[in-house]
């Protein structure tokens, strides 16, 4: 039995089609179509189960990383590359092998991608938030895909790029070692000072030195 579920938000519509093995069942057993419609742009992106899984793996994780504001050590290996930039811009690069291309579009080369292997979709923050919300609603809906359980996890420490890059951390050490080497080279070429024995003959005292200083005048102390 063919079943259809739709999650509608002001800027995004997510439609899931699938088959149920039992008559009268309300849950999908097999996903046959996942259609994501960006309403403002009149653009529809269609795919199968692989496309849905890729969306679920990539988009919420990118949203969480953007929310935390951390920088990753290396770009995540998700099937869909999500880049959230400042100034209200989000871009999604979706591999075309995940998509179902309509027959009329096969004849024309892809206009928005030079390589032709990925479809690049540009969104605003609001459209991206709607996509995340639609996926969250899908995951929370026990009537659609009950096996789909949203899982969250924090990124481990090793996945995060250090706040100060290693090159900057090592720069003071390098400058110190270089200056030490330069100074060592300079002092190596300087001659070693010779030790002179102290002279035996004493210098006769000058007449000024032997003139007695005037006796200090002490104030007279009153007798008790």
């Amino acid at each position, binding site marked *: 039995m063919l079943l259809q579920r739709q999650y509608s938000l002001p800027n995004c519509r997510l439609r899931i089609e699938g088959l149920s093995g039992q008559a009268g069942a309300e849950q999908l057993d097999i996903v046959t179509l996942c259609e994501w419609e960006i309403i403002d742009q009149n653009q529809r992106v269609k795919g199968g189960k692989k496309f849905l899984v890729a969306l679920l793996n990539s988009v919420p994780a990118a949203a969480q*990383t953007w929310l935390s504001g951390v920088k990753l050590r290396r770009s995540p290996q998700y099937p869909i590359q999500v880049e959230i930039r400042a100034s209200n811009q989000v871009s999604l690069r979706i591999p075309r092998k995940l998509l179902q291309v309509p027959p009329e579009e096969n004849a024309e080369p892809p206009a928005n991608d030079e390589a032709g292997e990925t479809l690049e979709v540009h969104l605003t923050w609001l459209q991206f938030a709607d996509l995340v919300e639609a996926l*969250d609603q899908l995951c929370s809906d026990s009537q659609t895909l009950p096996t789909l359980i949203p899982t969250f996890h924090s990124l481990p420490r090793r996945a995060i790029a250090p706040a100060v890059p290693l090159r900057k951390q090592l720069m003071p050490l390098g400058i110190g070692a270089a200056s030490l080497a330069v100074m060592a080279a300079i002092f190596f070429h300087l001659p070693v000072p010779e030790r002179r024995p102290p002279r035996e003959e004493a210098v006769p005292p000058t007449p000024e030195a032997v003139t007695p200083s005037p006796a200090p005048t002490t104030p007279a102390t009153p007798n008790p």
Partner: protein
Amino acid sequence: MPATIESPEVELLPPILAALPDPQGVSVCPRRARWQLDLLLLALECVDLHASELMLQVLRDLQLQVMIPNRVVFWQIRCTNPFRQITQRTPLPLAETKALTAVVVQVARRQTAILRHLLLVLDQLQAQNLPPETYAPLAEYLDRFRRHFRKRMNLQRSGLFLYKNNQALNELGLKLLAQLLLCAGTKGMERLWFSLFDGEVS
């Protein structure tokens, strides 16, 4: 001999916080999480003038007064943000962090309409190549955000040196609007909670 009932001591948490598990290997709220939570609360206060009262109301509604009984404690907890001018060096326990997360999410959910409206107007202004200050409510929000930020945060810290510039502060304010909308979603609380510990778990 009188009968005694021995029961293990269980920490009683409000039911809404049950969805937020303790992260592995973290016993207190990390420094970046304190900064992030305080910043989100600050943005909420700038979106709505009555948000600070709404936060206290949410604390009562969610039965979070066990952890944050009044506005003084709430202020003290927010002052654990290391970038504030008046900052407290006391560690922030995870239970209070969960309470702050719940407050952010609940207040953001109640302000979803305003958040969506401001972001929608931002899209339209950008499409016409107009600055955000062209629209009065957006300009008011940004102006309030800049004033509150500069009044409360210590701009002499090297991390905040960037925000002496109005443009950088405006970009931060706009980004926080979108982040609050993500927090207000169906799984927003879990998403915010786990994002607070990104890069902190082993």
